[in-house]
């Protein structure tokens, strides 16, 4: 009897173990990595420890970071905004460097990227460039453009003029034919005919009574489907408010809130996918209840200003980095839980689910 029980357990236990593993796998079929824009390197952090998984060397400070749908390829802007690096995020290796500088018959065409993104399938890159021709002893400005680049051949396929002030390109979720183009206002680029059209006035709203919005989206979000950024609004009567603007990447619908405080200036904001709470950072950390538009929790970064806040892949924790050489894990009550020292100062952080 006892022997039979042991035999049963002998067979059942491995099944239970396997069964549990496969259940866990189904729930979490990805590896979570945090990509942090450093100086001269992309810092890859495994937040589960946390520890630095890899440092990928590039030229100069890292700016934009975008990823394919499966998270397995990343596009990173660095080298004083002159080079786009295509990175294999599984092996953490650079696949390619695309330098957008070019020559003209009169000199050098200095192109700087202010907003770039990789297509969900990883075949193309899109980059908004300002263009300046450096002639022998003078400079000539050329119109700024969004370039479509084939990542296989590294060739420029198409381009469209785009307004100055553009600084973020972001694919519409589940629709690889459209890119949201964030500048002073929000535009939409239709890739079928490479046409750009105004989607919504933000600095220049249709109704000025709604207030002119001012934001600098150096810290775009959207990994969970919601892009969000702190917003300063100025009204015709002189009122200035601070709050948050966010957009559902699938519907393209923008919402805003203005919280009940004097503007102090925040750099980045992240909103949970249920649109329940927003978290902002710079010299202070705020937790904002979206429904009531009130700051329900307030704290301060432990070692000085932090530019970037993001949510963990499971949205259970908050990650902070940007400015100094640190990565912080905090709970959603804004209490620091873990701290990791990084090799360089940083700008922003992206939380990516790399499919297994």
């Amino acid at each position, binding site marked *: 009897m006892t022997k039979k029980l042991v035999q049963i357990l002998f067979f059942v236990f491995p099944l239970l173990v396997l069964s549990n593993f496969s259940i866990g796998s189904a729930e979490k079929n990805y590896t979570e990595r945090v990509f942090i824009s450093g100086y001269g390197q992309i810092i890859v952090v495994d937040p589960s420890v946390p520890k630095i998984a890899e440092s990928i060397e590039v030229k100069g400070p890292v700016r934009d970071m975008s990823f394919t749908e499966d998270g397995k390829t990343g596009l990173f802007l660095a080298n004083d905004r002159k080079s786009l690096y295509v990175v294999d995020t599984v092996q953490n290796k650079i696949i390619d460097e695309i330098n957008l500088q070019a020559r003209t018959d009169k000199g050098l065409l200095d192109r700087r990227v*202010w907003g770039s993104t990789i297509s969900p399938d990883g075949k193309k890159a899109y980059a908004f460039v*300002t263009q300046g021709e450096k002639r022998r002893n*003078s*400079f000539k*400005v050329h119109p700024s453009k969004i370039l479509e680049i084939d990542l296989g051949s590294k060739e420029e396929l198409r381009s469209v003029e785009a307004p*100055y002030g553009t*600084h973020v390109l972001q694919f519409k979720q589940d629709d690889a034919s459209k890119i949201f183009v964030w500048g002073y206002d929000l535009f939409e680029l239709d890739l079928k005919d490479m046409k750009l059209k105004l989607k919504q006035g933000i600095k220049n709203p249709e109704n000025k009574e709604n207030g002119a919005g001012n934001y*600098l989206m150096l810290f775009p979000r959207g990994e969970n489907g919601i892009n969000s950024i702190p917003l300063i609004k100025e009204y015709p009567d002189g009122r200035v408010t601070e709050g948050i603007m966010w957009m559902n990447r699938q519907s393209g619908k923008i919402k805003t809130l203005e919280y009940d405080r004097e503007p102090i200036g925040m750099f980045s904001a992240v909103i949970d996918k249920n649109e329940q709470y927003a978290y902002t950072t710079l010299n202070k950390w705020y937790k904002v209840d979206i429904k009531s538009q009130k700051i329900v929790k307030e704290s301060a970064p432990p070692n000085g200003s932090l530019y970037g806040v993001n949510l963990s892949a499971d949205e259970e924790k908050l990650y902070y980095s940007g400015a100094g050489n640190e990565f912080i894990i905090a709970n959603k009550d804004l209490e620091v839980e873990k701290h990791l020292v990084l090799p360089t100062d940083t700008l922003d952080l992206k939380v990516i689910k790399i499919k297994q």
Partner: protein
Amino acid sequence: MVKQKLGSLIVIVGFLSIMSACVEQSPTGHSEKKTANVHVSKQVEKSCISCHAVDQEGKLERIESVRKSPEGWAQTIARMERIHGLKITDKEREQLVVDLSKERGLAPEEAEKVQYWLANKPSYLEANPPNESVVKSCIGCHAAGRFEAQRRTEEEWKNLKDFHLVMYPSIYLNHRHTDWPEEADKAIEYLAKNYGVESKVWDQWKGNEYDVSGKWKVVGFQGTKGFYLGESEFTKSNDGYTEKKSIKFLKGQGPQELSGNMKIYTGYMLRSHYMQGKKKINGSYNVTSENLIKGDWSYKEDLGITGEETYYKVQNEKPEIFHSEPRAWKKGTTNKVNLYGMNLKKLKTEDLELPKGVEVTKLTATSDEQIEAEIKVSKNSETDTFLVNGDKVAVHGKFTLYDKADYLKIEPSYGVSRMGDAGPMDKVSIQYVAYAYSNGKDGKSETKDDLKLGPVEAEWSLLTYPEKNAKRDDRPYIGKLDKNGLYTPKEEGVNKDRTFVQENVGSATVTAKSIIDGETLTTKSHHITTVPDYVNNIH
């Protein structure tokens, strides 16, 4: 026949002599040799022509379409080295600045308006340019002095816009509160109209040069220490002048000796490098006539320690008054006044032409440099500023008649000091000075007719900023304000004693209290201590 030939020869020789004199002599007698085929100078051709070719009008591209101060040219050359790979020696760099300032410089009238910028005066409160587009597109980053110290053709002003957009494309993001390119176009229109390269004053001045050799008397003012007097002598050297100067504060210690070298740019801009003991002092002066030099100096390693100076050429013909303590005389009383100058033993009461109701009742020369005077001012005399005239005496500067001191003002009204000295960056202190003011004829404060009576001694203190309900008290960390109004910031770097704010930066309220004629006057100003001026090439 011989007579006729001799006559012709004399005519030809005479003509050649006149032509020669015309070529070599400038209006002030300065030797001015310029080879027709040389563009600006041989050094400019050697260093610049590989990129700046001669254009269709026979001018060096860009270079001969702008005019700048020596400081402006030095910045341009530094940028050519920093960004465009220009390789030159220190000697060549200096020669370029000298040559460009001489051929493509500013007239004295043009430079006078931007002397504060040329002298790099910290905490100088510059008035906004009258053009709104200039304010919107330029002032966010630059002092107006920077571009007001330049003259350009319209094309060159336009080039400046493209230069900014190509070199600093982030300008779009920094200026997203405005439509920068559109505002810049409007600004360029204004600048081209008001700061064009062609100017009569430059045409009149170009090629002239003052000779400052000889002895001078000096009057200066240094905030927190007061007025001083001194003597100076300039001696010609290989590439400029050497100067020996001795000064003594009216209230203070014994004489201080300075010596240094100075160079003259554009024929009138003196740039000095002194040593005072171990202290290095830089001076920026303009010769405004054969007998007058005006300018500013500052410590090389602390721009906030600074002073203003005027030089008067020594003469022994007639009395000359260049300073008075005080300069503001109260009505209805007899004012005890000390007058400073030269040849003052020759001065007689009747030499001074004073306004109605003002009478010199006593004049005692204690030396050729100082007179003790008693000046009675009638209660009915006019409240105003005035000049003292007289054929037999030269009197510099304006004097003031006033009823009473009504209020105080602190200068600078918004003090910006900078941490420094821990690393490569120097600290910038602030010399706070309290000035007394009278309400003037209308009896109201802060109106156009108010009279500035001069600096006054004050009791100084620092309060929190804002004074009431300050969320944080920065005073223990940011620096010290001494009893004379000298504010000295602390060093940069992390201060572990501070919570959240990591460095010795912050705000405070500066207060000055002064008792004038038995009445206590107080005033306040805003002070900040901020980071070192790391990006100091965009001023």
